[in-house]
């Protein structure tokens, strides 16, 4: 039993969903999403018992490309994040009718497939293929099922597509160069390379461009808010919940170990960029009129912090970043789902048109508040564990980084509570707001449950990822 099973399962799921027809497509997709989750849990079990669940076979002889899927703790953690969020995301869409549902759900599963592939791939070219493959479904999801004016949507989505694609091409160049040096795309061989400082810098920058656009790190974030706003809720969740984690994961897996010299030399610059993203994102989020845009900027702030954590090159930074990635994935999916729930009832995402919802729907208000609190990293939520660890690592570099990055807990509280106040509180709204349905509530409770459980007891995840992160850190510190 090895990890390729999940890839096959998701791919088969995507086809099966497409064949099954519009009526049952959502259920079929959910079934396959859940079975992928089950499968990854089984794999986790196998992994914990010390079994080798990696997969390796030669794919193309010339150039030397292997179909290599490596499963270490880090990959499995990201795999679990993806396979756990996919069914949740599919489940959240049950309240909304989508045209041509079979294609829609099929694309979701296909995207999940590509993202899982990205997290598992241990061969540069294979990884690159999965990386680009993930872009295609989200492009169609956002373009076809998105909301708002079709022309504007097209503009935003195409910008996103070309922008990320252009960034990735630099990564491809870097891989080609690395291949010339190493004669193989296998990650172990790339780790072994001894590149000069200049080479490393260029490769580092090429990788950085790809990742900075994907994550996004300022100033490469301009696609984000618009696409989040235009994409359908499911698309936004996929994008923010999982896809941007691809970039962060890749920093840890590919960029840092391959170019450690450059990473060390220019650490301050990149940590500063991340921290600047925290402040900038938070401040811009303050004055957003659109709920989804606000959440987009809050996401920008959070991933900025995560990126800063990864670039510290300390075990705390990496571990905190991974923890925060997982936590942020859940929280952001929950928050976008909240905005979708409001949209289902009020047909609007403009914050000023909301207000006074809490009196009408106490359950919804409580869940929303819990998610807001998780987002501002209240202790006992998973986000706190991540954020604390990341901030601690920043303080190890320089206390001022921790201070500046830490402004997120002030500014984050400011914009989130302001938003909560404007959306939920105040005089009872004249428009009726039905409280959450069972399905909606169930999805939210699941997310909240995960956040609080791991907030109190993050040990399983920490134990899972730490050995592999230490391994990577060893590679980084080889020079």
């Amino acid at each position, binding site marked *: 039993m090895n990890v390729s099973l999940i890839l096959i399962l998701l791919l088969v799921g995507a086809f099966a969903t497409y064949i099954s027809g519009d009526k049952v497509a959502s259920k079929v997709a959910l079934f396959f999403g859940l079975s992928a989750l089950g499968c990854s849990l089984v794999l986790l079990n196998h992994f914990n018992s010390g079994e080798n669940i990696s997969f390796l076979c030669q794919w193309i002889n010339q150039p030397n490309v292997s179909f290599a899927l490596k499963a270490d703790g880090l990959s499995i953690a990201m795999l679990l994040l993806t396979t756990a969020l996919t069914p949740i995301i599919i489940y959240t869409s049950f309240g909304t009718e989508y045209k041509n549902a079979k294609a829609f759900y099929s694309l979701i599963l296909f995207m999940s497939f590509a993202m899982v592939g990205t997290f598992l791939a241990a061969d540069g070219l294979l990884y690159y293929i999965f990386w680009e493959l993930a872009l295609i479904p989200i492009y169609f999801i956002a373009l076809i099922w998105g909301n708002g004016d079709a022309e504007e949507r097209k503009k935003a989505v195409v910008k996103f597509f070309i922008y990320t694609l252009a960034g990735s091409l630099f990564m491809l160049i870097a891989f080609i160069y690395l291949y010339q040096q190493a004669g193989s795309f296998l990650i172990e061989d790339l780790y072994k390379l001894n590149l000069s400082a200049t080479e490393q810098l260029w490769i580092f920058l090429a990788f950085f461009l790809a990742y900075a656009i994907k994550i996004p790190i300022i100033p490469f974030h301009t*696609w984000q808010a618009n696409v989040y706003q235009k994409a359908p809720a499911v698309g936004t969740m996929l994008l923010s919940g999982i896809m941007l984690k691809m970039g962060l994961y890749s920093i840890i897996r590919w960029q840092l170990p391959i170019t450690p010299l450059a990473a060390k030399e220019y650490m301050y610059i990149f940590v500063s960029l991340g921290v600047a993203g925290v402040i900038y994102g938070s*401040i*811009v989020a303050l004055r957003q009129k659109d709920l989804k845009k606000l959440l987009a900027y809050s996401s920008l702030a959070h991933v900025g912090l995560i990126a800063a954590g990864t670039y510290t090159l300390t075990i705390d930074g990496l571990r905190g970043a991974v923890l925060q990635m997982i936590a942020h994935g859940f929280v952001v999916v929950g928050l976008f789902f909240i905005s979708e729930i409001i949209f289902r009832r009020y047909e609007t995402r403009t914050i000023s048109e909301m207000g006074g919802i809490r*009196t009408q729907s106490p359950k919804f208000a409580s869940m929303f508040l819990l998610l807001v609190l998780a987002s501002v990293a209240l*202790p006992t939520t998973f986000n706190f564990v991540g954020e604390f660890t990341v901030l601690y690592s920043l303080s190890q570099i320089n206390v001022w980084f921790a201070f500046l990055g830490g402004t997120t*807990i002030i500014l984050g*509280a400011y914009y989130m509570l302001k938003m909560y106040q404007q959306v939920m509180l105040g005089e009872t709204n004249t428009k009726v707001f039905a409280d959450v349905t069972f399905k909606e509530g169930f999805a939210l409770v699941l997310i909240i449950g995960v956040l609080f459980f791991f907030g*109190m*007891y993050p*040990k399983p995840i920490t134990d899972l990822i730490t050995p592999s992160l230490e391994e990577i850190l060893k590679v980084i510190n080889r020079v």
Partner: protein
Amino acid sequence: MNTNLALLLLLAPFIGFLFNIFFGKSIGKTASGVIGTLMIVVSFIVTLYFFGAITAKPEGIHISLFDWIQISNFKVDFGFQFDQLSVLWLLFVTGIGSLIHMYSISYMHDDENMHKYFAYLNLFIFFMITLVIGSNLLVLFIGWEGVGLCSYLLIGFWHKNQEFNDAAKKAFIMNRIGDLGLLIGIFIIGSLFSTLDYATLKTAIAGATDLNMYWISAAAFALFIGACGKSAQIPLYTWLPDAMAGPTPVSALIHAATMVTAGIFMITRLNYLFDLAPDVQNIIAIVGAVTSLVAATIALVQTDIKKVLAYSTVSQLGLMFLALGLGAYEVAVFHVITHAFFKACLFLGSGSVIHALHGEQDMRKMGGLKKVMTITFVTFLISSLAISGIPPFSGFFSKDEILMVAFEHNKILWFIASLASLMTAFYMFRLLYLTFFKEFRGTAEQKSHLHESPTLITFPLIVLAILATLGGLISLPTNSWLNEYLAPLFTKVATEEHHFGTSEYMLMLVAVIGGLVGIGIAYSKYIKQNLVPEEDEKITGFAKVLYNKYYVDEIYDSLFVKSINGLSKFFRDNVETTLSSLVFGLGKVTNEIGFQGKKLQSGSIGFYLFAFVLGICAIITYLFLAQ
């Protein structure tokens, strides 16, 4: 056994919270209130057990539940530590908490969301207990943020009113500014000592030979910022008066007796750290003294009964910080305890008044309640005497000790503190006279409804008044039980035995006279001259500045809130669009290049041939001549 009991202590309020959240509405208001109260009483009883256990075992009890967060150079476990300090705090948190819960059953009975109120209150107690019994700084931080959250929830309890929501938000954010300081302090301590555990930290500091004083001072200062946020010191005090938007029992519990003392708790907890940073201690002392004076001056002219009490709280907290800064931790703790008694009593008394007047909080519309609300009046009087530092009430002892310590260290600080306590006596009695004496100034309709509050409200008042009277006994100047009890906590030998000479008695006398003078001025103004504070518009001169709280809110607003919002607008409208157009600009450049390049493809064969020939020339030159 201890573990289970500790869990019971901690989880009883949490269960109350869950129960009230999920079933509170269906079981009815009284039942949800009773359950909420009972849970706190359970915690109180368990606390009594621990009090006994600690008395028998002075070195404290450590309980570790599980590993929580792992950091490279240390692990943070989720553990508890019971020692003299935490038990002391637990006692009054759960004790006063129970009383206030009881009080709330009656006070909040008209509110439709009473079950939520009790849920939040229980949650608050849960977090407060976490804060107090945590065995390391991070568990303290859970409680620290948690109480901030509950404070947010309870200040904004009437969430239909956006002003209340603003106040709640402000409280949360200002607290978070402090929290950042605390976090940074935690980071520094973590990297310096590789532990966040109090006990380990203490031994590490005691055993260390070459400490990095610079970073220790930095850590102490950062922690102090955290304390400032939670305990409403300059410059982060403005949230506390606004927090009075919440229900009055909440103000009594959270914003007077318990949560705001968390900063003092934390500094006392880490006394061994602060002892190493005398500069920071000086800052603490000065900030405390200045806060106490500034808040007292503002309180002089306020007309909202709760605002007066709020500023008085800030002022008293300032005195406690003064004591902390001077290294007299046990004195600060002593004042925390007595202050909890009399300030809770005052707030609850004011709540009783407000309850009777159906929500009226303006003192100018009160008066003459003495006859109707006897119990409230008597308890209020006792507490006012206590806060004014009149013997033999508890406040006298604690305040006097602070003044004495201040006098020993620095005469200026002593003078400021004395001035503040003089003012305290004045504004408290101004409050008392305006509220309870003379004729009723409200509407006739209100007058017809005036009544003494029910037993559920008066009982806590009586208990607290008794405590406010007798609380001083725990630390008499000559024979201090408290100091002995707390002694194991402190590395420094507790302040050298006071050999009570004439100077000490003189000081005491001065303090008492000061208090009496304050009361006297209030008496002459509001009883003899029968003055009533003027309407808002008529206030002029310095009084206006005071009435508007030195315009600090406005200054903060324009300095921070406006600027950050302006920055946000600038970023949103300018920077974002510029960045966006830069990216689009790249696209446009590509487009333009393509467009221009298209012109080359003119279709003219002659032109192609030229290009061809030139190209060949170039290639040949490169291949054969360039080398």
